[in-house]
């Protein structure tokens, strides 16, 4: 195969390369600022773990900005002292090391990764290798190829976020996975070491455009939403209630305080128990219905079928979704957009299976809802 030797001084695409390179630098800087803002916001809320994760992203993109600027100086204006190539490798590896260490440590702690700091150790060794090895050495390729392994960490992180999010947020996380994937291809096609191995200049242009588009994708995925907090929605669940509007009966309830050992109290206590069995339940259902109608009357609300949406207390949030005949109600200790999505899905599920059917509600056994337990757990992503 014939490879091209791109001379950046004479190539007719020089202005295009300069423009793309500048835009990539700017977008990296923009990403760094985005995560810096998120770090500051989460630090204000005293959430140190999330602040650390966002700081890792800030470091990653700050490093990327510096590297892209140096690459531009080297390629287009021949700024190429002896240390430049080494600086690029070492900085790139250092920021990946910090990023990997923070992310892996956090996800091992919460039990999502079982990697035992493998990726951190791997990038640490790579960092030492790049630090000690001459960039002109033939062995540098071994390190570059070995550098593919830690690239899995952002992908695993994005997959984890996809599994933990729902609705629009999940779509954004899918965009993040694709963007990360295309970003890697873009970086691979634009690397200096690749330039002598590509058959046409068009590959470099494609690589840079891919980087540009995927950086935009990554930005859109993270823009104006606290993805990490939303992904932790399961940690703040307390109770789910489903109430029949007409009779004020509690038709279903699920204690979510201990998701790992989740048990549906109603069904575990016996399938033959009638709904509305305990005083507490009637108090809760009556209370919610009562509050709903009182508030509608006090505020002169014209939302006929749809009533109360949210009750915010000091450390508790009650989310409500109104259906034709039922109200789904979720008590949590954090206000996250994700809950609304799940609540709607559960409401639709119950309406499809029960409300639309002719049922004698007055004489209904709790066992009727036993099949729903698995469905609800599936919706709420509960494995046990």
């Amino acid at each position, binding site marked *: 195969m014939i490879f091209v030797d791109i001379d950046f001084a004479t190539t007719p695409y020089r202005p295009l390369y300069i423009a793309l390179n500048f835009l990539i630098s700017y977008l990296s800087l923009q990403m760094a600022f985005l995560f810096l803002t998120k770090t500051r916001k989460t630090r204000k809320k005293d959430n140190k773990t999330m602040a650390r994760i966002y700081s890792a992203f800030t470091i990653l993109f700050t490093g990327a900005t510096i590297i892209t600027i140096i690459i531009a100086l080297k390629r287009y204006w021949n700024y190429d002292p002896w240390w430049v190539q080494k600086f690029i490798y070492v900085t790139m590896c250092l920021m990946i090391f910090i990023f990997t260490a923070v992310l892996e440590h956090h996800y091992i702690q919460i039990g999502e990764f079982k990697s035992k700091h493998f990726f951190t150790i791997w990038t640490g060794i790579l960092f030492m290798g790049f630090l000690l090895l001459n960039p002109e050495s033939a062995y540098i390729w071994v390190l570059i190829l070995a550098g593919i392994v830690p690239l899995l960490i952002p992908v695993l992180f994005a997959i984890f976020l996809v599994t933990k999010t729902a609705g629009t947020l999940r779509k954004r996380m899918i965009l993040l996975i694709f963007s990360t994937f295309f970003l890697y291809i873009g970086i691979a096609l634009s690397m200096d070491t690749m330039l002598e191995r590509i058959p046409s200049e068009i590959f470099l242009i494609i690589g840079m455009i891919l980087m540009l588009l995927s950086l935009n994708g990554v930005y859109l995925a993270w823009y104006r939403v606290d993805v990490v907090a939303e992904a932790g929605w399961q940690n703040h669940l307390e109770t789910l209630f489903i109430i029949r509007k007409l009779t004020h009966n509690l038709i279903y309830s699920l204690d979510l305080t201990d998701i790992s050992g989740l048990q549906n109290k109603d069904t575990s206590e016996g399938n033959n128990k009638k709904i509305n069995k305990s005083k507490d339940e009637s108090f809760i259902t009556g209370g919610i219905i009562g509050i709903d109608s009182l*508030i509608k009357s006090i505020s002169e609300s014209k939302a006929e079928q749809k009533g109360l949406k949210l009750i915010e207390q000091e450390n508790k949030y009650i989310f409500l979704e109104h259906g034709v005949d039922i109200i789904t109600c979720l008590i949590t200790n954090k206000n996250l957009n994700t809950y609304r999505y799940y609540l709607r899905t559960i409401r639709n599920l119950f309406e499809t299976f029960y409300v639309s059917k002719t049922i004698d509600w007055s004489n209904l056994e709790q066992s009727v809802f036993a099949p729903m337990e698995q469905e609800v757990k599936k919706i709420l992503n509960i494995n046990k």
Partner: protein
Amino acid sequence: MLNVEYPLSGTGPEISFGLEVILVYISFQMFGVFIYRYLTSTFKEQNLRNLAWSMIFLGYGITYIFYIIADYFINPAVRDYFSQYGYISLTSGITLYALLSEYIEKSKWYPVTIFCGTFLVLSIISLILGHRDMTLNLAFLAVPFAAVYILRYFYKYAKITNFNKRVLGKIAGLFLSMLIILAGYFFVSDAMTARFGPDIRVLSASLNIIGVICFMFAILNLPDYREFVWKQHLRALFIVRTSGILLFNRFWKRENKENSNEYLIGGALSSIQTVLSNITEETSINRMELEDKALLFKMYPDKDVVGCIIADEYIDSLNERLNVFLDRFDVMFGGSLKDWDGNTQVFLPLESICDEVFMEKPQTD
């Protein structure tokens, strides 16, 4: 004066070219952000304001595309045309901004739009007649004029918020960023390039980028436009003892006067709190949201007092005003509430405090 050759070349111009590409990108990014807000916002006035801002950034972005083509790529013989397209794009953006702004403000004669529109028509005539200098002069007149008009809007913004410090800081930022953008725009001119050489474009583009980013940061962090029409959304205020006794109330909007007995509402608010505390074991409520209404609460558990605002939607400004009102209430009556004998007449001074905090007289029957 230096003899500058177009298209510009060399290290300095190449860097300024890269920076100007970033500037175009940021302008279009801002255009996209405002268009997105325009398409997704449900609040009509804010919607159009977003569309107005998007026009400014669209005009600015297109202007710089023409400048880049004119100064870095095109044959000097046709350069003038591209420069003029740039000026016309800028004036078009400004005119559209003025048109939408005056429509939002319900202007009777649309004076700024007519003024900017005249500039635009004259610029197009100059282009047809080939008078580049004329178009340039018109653009250089239109830009500061538009800047003054935008500043006037920010002044109004500050005034509506009662010169709130939080908003004033942002508006100062906007003012400063506009000065930086104007300085950057000043240095992009041919006269400045001829005076200081093509490298001045690096300074010009850098100033422009810094200015536009600061502008973007300040404007995107300005409080929601809804905050300034909080009065329109305010319906009622209640101060209730947790036992249900109504201490003070005021209605701003009331659709059904017969049904809304304030004493019953006081009792209802109190019972809601009791029921909720039994459900969630939390004693306080911060807010309740319905599809078309919101209730904002502020509790003084040690003083046995609850403040509640009923509004058409949740607005931060209302929450802040409720806090201010209850703080004033606490200063005045906090000490004597325990020994209160049930005479609601003692709370009469609250009428004046309410007038002051909510800046409005009650609805007269």
